[in-house]
């Protein structure tokens, strides 16, 4: 039996609050945690298969053109080398998320420097790697490829759906008492999960079994099928443990297809594990952005005009463009508004979703501009934001599903000790260090995806949750077990969750902060169905049935579940279908970030001294894993503000720093004490009243640091990351100004 629910509107019943087990929301430890801390969790690259051989990708050393010859003969003579594969089905880069459309095939057609063009297969990893490096390639190169988005020769498109204008923005700006008009830049960035992209492919009697590092299995199955020209039913994908994804594993990647083709050709299992440089160079990246932000405000600090223009980039023909202004439409009130969105066509690695596509860079730049406006108005940055919170969604007039920005701001300010901030910069000095505070709002759109899950109840009083959902560090194992335990009245230890297998019901997968709420709802629905059947056996209406510690309780009657089950195990499926709810109300998660930094007056070095975030995400499903996600998001904000930048060679567009020594993700010593506080909330418009938390932290946190740096030393850096050279230049200027 399947219990379906189409998510069309609000639900004020809050059924989960009426359950008795009391495990949901608690910081339950991750059920798979013991495997992870002892090295027993098996990830894709750990998989071994009898007779397995190894593939190594070969990269293009031109920016645009065609491979004319792979000089395979010499490498085929090398010991252990089995094949050089240049199948036309090999893909050029990673696929996008939540689509069954595969990435572009025909890898011999080169569109960016570093593109994988072939796979060398050998008996051992060492042999494959060596041969891949030795393979020489002839190309017909097409000169003149544009690689920089700001190159005047770049073709620029304005996708119609992404432009909008309300009122008379130009006139409003003209008439405004106070005006901000600034350009901000954010860098090209890499997801850089610690687990490199990897696949192990094996054909078993016409069926492809694929172990692969993926976030969304069901859509990936469709992508692999389309890429290979086979049926999705003939593919099984397994990914029980994924070592982080952050968007880069939403779609399939070049090594996935290469492994599958090689395994078919070799009639042996083939493992292709990307090297770190390949993992950063052949998958996807976050587009750099250039953002022009205009604001007009009246004397009281009320916004009259908001303008947000963005230039992002992607390969020619790619539909995805970093949705920079996604939250600009509804975060602040202003009668006159304009959004302009430009996409430059460049020959760089494909741009796709990286943790919080859109707001991560859009809200960050906008929140920097808000700080500049507050400064100009002589207004407290928190007060400025509070003054501009809309009552309904600007432009559409839709209600907000819930709105917690004001509370996030005031509660955050109180907990952080914001009142101790000096209004003007260069007011607090400790030795060589200027000290300052900054803040920003956090905002991220919230959505659900279609999801299915199956829950089985056994006579021994245990439950099994099964779905193709992944756990990429997000806590899926814990959360899904908790939902089932809560609904069925079982201790956590009596629930097992099995994930990451396309043979199981198709879930939402992990991405876009929708995983827990979507797939969690499917588990919830399956459990609701089981509860109905148990209630029937108990002879009471389902809402009156109490389930706790393996017993059903009603009207002073307490019966063990196994008795009610009539000697047979039970099973049900839950199916969440996104409906009209999304159109009827604007749903988002809200928060605020506060930072205190020190800026070295002599060297320009920035140290984040402490940070605090308040988060409103609806129902918190697991206090500990939610907190970890919030921490992760805020720390990504530190990276965006201070250190992370994929550097593209100006001549050929290749990624210069395609490794972890040169692409600087925050390290332990970069991260200070962080505080996370969740606001109590139930969003009726979210199934289970729960929303996402994986991305909110990064949607503005970087701005809190940028703004704190200004408050500390008076330097505004409008090009992220805010590296020492940029700060130092500003410090020199500031000294000169002071004479």
């Amino acid at each position, binding site marked *: 039996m399947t219990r379906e629910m189409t998510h069309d509107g609000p639900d004020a019943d809050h059924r989960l609050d009426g359950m008795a087990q009391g495990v949901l929301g608690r910081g339950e430890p991750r059920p798979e945690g013991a495997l992870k801390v002892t090295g027993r969790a098996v990830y894709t690259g750990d998989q071994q298969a009898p007779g397995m051989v190894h593939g190594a990708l070969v990269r293009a050393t031109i920016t645009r053109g065609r491979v004319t010859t792979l000089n395979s003969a010499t490498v085929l003579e090398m010991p252990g080398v089995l094949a050089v594969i240049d199948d036309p089905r090999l893909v050029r880069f990673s696929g996008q998320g939540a689509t069954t459309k595969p990435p572009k095939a025909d890898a011999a057609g080169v569109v960016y420097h570093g593109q994988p063009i072939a796979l060398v297969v050998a008996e051992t990893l060492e042999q494959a790697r060596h041969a891949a490096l030795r393979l020489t390639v002839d190309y017909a190169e097409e000169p003149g490829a544009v690689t920089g988005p700001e190159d005047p020769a770049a073709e620029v498109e304005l996708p119609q759906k992404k432009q909008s204008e309300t009122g008379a923005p130009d006139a409003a700006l003209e008439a405004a008492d106070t005006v901000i008009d600034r350009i901000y830049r954010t860098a090209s960035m890499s997801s850089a999960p610690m687990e490199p992209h990897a696949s192990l492919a094996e054909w078993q009697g016409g069926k492809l079994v694929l172990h692969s590092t993926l976030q969304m299995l069901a859509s990936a199955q469709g992508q692999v099928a389309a890429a290979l020209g086979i049926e999705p039913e003939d593919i099984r994908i397994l990914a029980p443990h994924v070592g982080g994804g952050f968007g880069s594993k939403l779609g399939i990647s070049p090594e996935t297809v290469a492994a599958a083709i090689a395994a078919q050709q070799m009639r042996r299992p083939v493992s292709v594990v990307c090297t770190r440089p390949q993992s950063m160079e052949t998958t996807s990246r976050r587009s750099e952005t250039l953002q022009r932000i205009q604001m007009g405000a009246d004397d009281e600090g009320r916004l009259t005009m908001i303008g947000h223009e963005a230039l992002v980039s992607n390969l020619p023909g790619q539909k995805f463009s970093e949705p920079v202004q996604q939250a600009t439409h509804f975060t602040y009130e202003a009668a006159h508004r304009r959004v302009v969105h430009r996409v430059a066509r460049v020959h760089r690695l494909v741009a796709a979703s990286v943790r919080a596509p859109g707001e991560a860079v859009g809200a960050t730049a906008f929140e920097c501009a808000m700080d500049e406006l507050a400064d100009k108005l002589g207004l407290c940055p928190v007060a400025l934001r509070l003054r501009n919170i809309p009552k309904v969604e600007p432009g559409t007039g839709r209600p907000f599903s819930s709105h917690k920005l004001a509370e996030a701001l005031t509660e955050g300010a109180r907990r952080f000790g914001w009142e101790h901030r000096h209004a003007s910069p260069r007011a607090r000095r400790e030795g060589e260090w200027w000290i300052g505070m900054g803040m920003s709002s956090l905002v991220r759109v919230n959505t659900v995806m279609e999801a299915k899950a199956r829950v089985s109840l056994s006579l021994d009083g245990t439950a099994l949750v099964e779905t193709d959902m992944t756990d990429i560090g997000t806590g899926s194992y814990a959360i899904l077990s908790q939902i089932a335990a809560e609904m069925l009245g079982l201790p956590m230890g009596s629930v097992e969750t099995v994930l990451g297998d396309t043979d199981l019901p198709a879930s939402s997968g992990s991405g876009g902060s929708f995983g827990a709420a979507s797939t969690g709802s499917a588990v919830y629905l399956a459990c609701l169905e089981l509860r109905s059947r148990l209630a029937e056996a108990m002879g009471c209406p389902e809402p009156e049935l109490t389930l706790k510690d393996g017993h059903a309780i009603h009207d002073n009657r307490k019966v063990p579940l196994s008795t009610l089950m009539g000697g047979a195990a039970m099973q049900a499926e839950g199916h969440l279908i996104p409906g009209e709810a999304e159109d009827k109300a604007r749903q988002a998660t809200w928060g605020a970030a506060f930072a205190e930094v020190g800026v070295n007056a002599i060297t320009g070095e920035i140290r984040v001294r402490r940070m605090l975030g308040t988060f409103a995400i609806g129902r918190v499903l697991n206090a500990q894993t939610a907190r970890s996600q919030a921490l992760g998001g805020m720390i990504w904000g530190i990276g965006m503000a201070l250190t992370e930048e994929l550097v593209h060679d100006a001549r050929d567009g290749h990624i210069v720093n395609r490794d972890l*020594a040169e692409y600087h993700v925050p390290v332990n010593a970069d991260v200070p004490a962080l505080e996370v506080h969740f606001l109590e909330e139930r969003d009726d418009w979210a199934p289970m009243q729960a929303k996402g938390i994986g991305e909110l932290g990064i949607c503005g946190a970087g701005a809190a640091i940028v703004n704190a740096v200004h408050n500390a030393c008076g330097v505004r850096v409008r090009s992220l990351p805010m590296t020492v050279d940029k700060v130092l230049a500003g410090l020199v200027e500031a000294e000169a100004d002071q004479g």
Partner: protein
Amino acid sequence: MHVTLTINDTKHSLDLDPRTTLLDAIRSHAGLTGTKKGCDHGQCGACTVMVNGRRINSCLSLAVMHDGDAVTTIEGLGTPEALSPLQAAFLETDGFQCGYCTPGQICSATAMLEEIRAGWPSHVSETLDGPALPTEAEIAERMSGNLCRCSAYPNIVAAIRLAAAEREDAA
């Protein structure tokens, strides 16, 4: 080439391509895949193991350089049924998310606490001649060779402090 390694007290006699790193020998030849490969270039710490009691990046070392050495990997520190104090602390503080960097973090932390006990100074130590203490700053500094993209750093520091404090109490 022939190499003998003692990994977690078990002797492994391996015939290896001289290009094989210690990391690949452990993972692919000894079959202990708990030790992870994040970069293969000494940049991330995911491959940290202890060789003769000291932490090293096993990807930066060729297996043939370790003939006769004693290697401890994450599998040698504890099992799901019998966790080492650090493993238990990581579980308690949620010192990880995806878990991929975790074996390296725990091996690194295990050896790092010994380094502190032995009084080795770090960049943030007040003096060069000790004593070194497992403070937040010391731990963050000494653990900065172990990247965690999930950014569990605050919880990693908390886990290590917890394990260090428990050991002090026991001593």
